[in-house]
């Protein structure tokens, strides 16, 4: 069953067109990626889905409902969770306050605080620290935990491994697999192709403002030409 669908989505910042007809489909429970070179428009795609950058044209539907043109907070209430590249942790809120953030929006809560602290012991230790005092890895965990707390249906995750030490990258991978097991659908943006291949089932390749290729993980790993042509690896 389709959870998220983009049809011919165009998006631009003022004069510069970034997305020129993105079409994309994600089924419930999938963990799929959006791959592309630096500046291809991956972040722009996520921001457009989230409503932070309203599309110029095209249609975005979530759970069968059109969401293009809705305010970000409305889209969040429908069950779309967003973890931006910069993690978006509120520096002047404590870890606990950051976690309470979106939970009232949907009238139903996801993971309990106990479960989150059990799963992310590091966050438990730092529960009363301010967001500004967290390391990059801790911020990433908190940003993901925040979405779990809110019981979202879809997680838009922008380069979660960026700037993290190899050990932490592995931890994030484990967390994502576990999260997928719990039924959450994930759209992952990654520059780290190796990491993406370890956890994703399917890849979408963004090039020239469009999705030029979509394939299963196995296919993608075999097809080095695609990797070279569109991603430069």
């Amino acid at each position: 069953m389709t959870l998220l669908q983009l049809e011919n989505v165009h998006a631009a910042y003022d004069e510069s067109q970034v997305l020129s007809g993105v079409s994309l489909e994600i089924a419930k429970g999938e963990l799929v990626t959006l791959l592309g070179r630096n500046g291809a428009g991956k972040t722009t795609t996520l921001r457009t889905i989230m409503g932070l950058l309203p599309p110029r044209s095209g249609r975005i539907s979530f759970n069968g409902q059109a969401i293009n043109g809705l305010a970000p907070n409305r889209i969040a209430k429908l069950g779309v969770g967003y973890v931006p590249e910069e993690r978006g942790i509120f520096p002047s809120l404590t870890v606990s306050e950051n976690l309470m953030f979106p939970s009232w929006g949907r009238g139903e809560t996801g993971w309990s605080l106990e479960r989150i602290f059990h799963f992310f012991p590091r966050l438990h230790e730092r529960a009363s620290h301010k967001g500004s005092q967290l390391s990059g890895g801790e911020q990433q965990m908190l940003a993901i935990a925040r979405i779990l707390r809110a019981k979202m249906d879809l997680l838009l995750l922008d380069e979660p491994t960026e700037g993290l030490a190899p050990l932490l990258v592995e931890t994030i991978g484990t967390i994502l697999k576990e999260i997928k097991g719990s039924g959450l659908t994930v759209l992952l943006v990654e520059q780290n192709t190796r990491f993406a291949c370890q956890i994703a089932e399917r890849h979408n390749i963004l090039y020239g403002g469009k999705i030029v290729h979509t394939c299963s993980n196995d296919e993608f790993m075999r097809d080095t030409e695609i990797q070279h042509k569109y991603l430069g690896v």
Partner: protein
Amino acid sequence: MEPVFLFSQFFNGLVLGCIYVLLSLGLTVVFGTLGVVNFAHGALYMLGAYAAYTVATHLHLNFLACLILCPVIVAGIGMVLEKCLISKLYKLPHYYNLLLTFGIMFIIQDAIKIIFGPEGEPFNIPDLLQGAVNLGFMYYPKYRLFILVVTALLSGGLWLFIEKTRLGAIIRAGTDNAEMADALGTNISWTFTLIFGLGAGLSGLAGVLAAPIQNVQPAMGMDILVQTFVVVIIGGMGSIGGSILAGLVIGQILTFSIVFWPPGSTTLIYAFMALVLVTRPRGFFGRVSFFE
């Protein structure tokens, strides 16, 4: 000079400082969260004073009723202003901010002149708070002490509200990163309306409190606005603690310069501001400099 005289001047400085604290708190919270420098803030202060005059003189309600009712009225006016006009500024260049809020200030001021006349209205200290209290070493007017107590309670309450409550956490989140708060399901436009209303309400309260000790007249907001900006800039734009400290300091500087060197009383606070900005461009506790 007698110590009692100096003490009473010190208290006068505190009371004046309290008015600045209440005014600058609203201004600084609105700036810190919405990024709007509200030049109509003084006009809202004046509205608070006129609301108190109207409620007391025409509706014959007591001062306590003024104290509760008038800030709510001014907060309501502020919320309407934010929804209809101020909210349009968030996506526009900064000079629109100046033009719009200045315009609002003049409109409010002239509307008051048309309704109440340009000469001002009398407002007496409420009966219950008349007279003086024996502090042991001196007598001090009851009403002025009352202002000190209300300001202290209110500053403490505001701090608790912002640091310890859920709504306070939303306000801090909106200040940190409004876009992210929105993406996490917070209706940020209503949060902004609420914050502007809060700032307006604080300004209105300052107006009610000041009504019995200053003249209730149309220009009262304009006069105090410039000093309030000095307070906010010295305290650090967006900083609550900074506003409180700077408000009290400016109150003292103004009061004592009038006592010891009257000709310099209007310039001294600007000299002090220059000194602070040279050594600390962001003011006492500011996160960004006014000129950044």
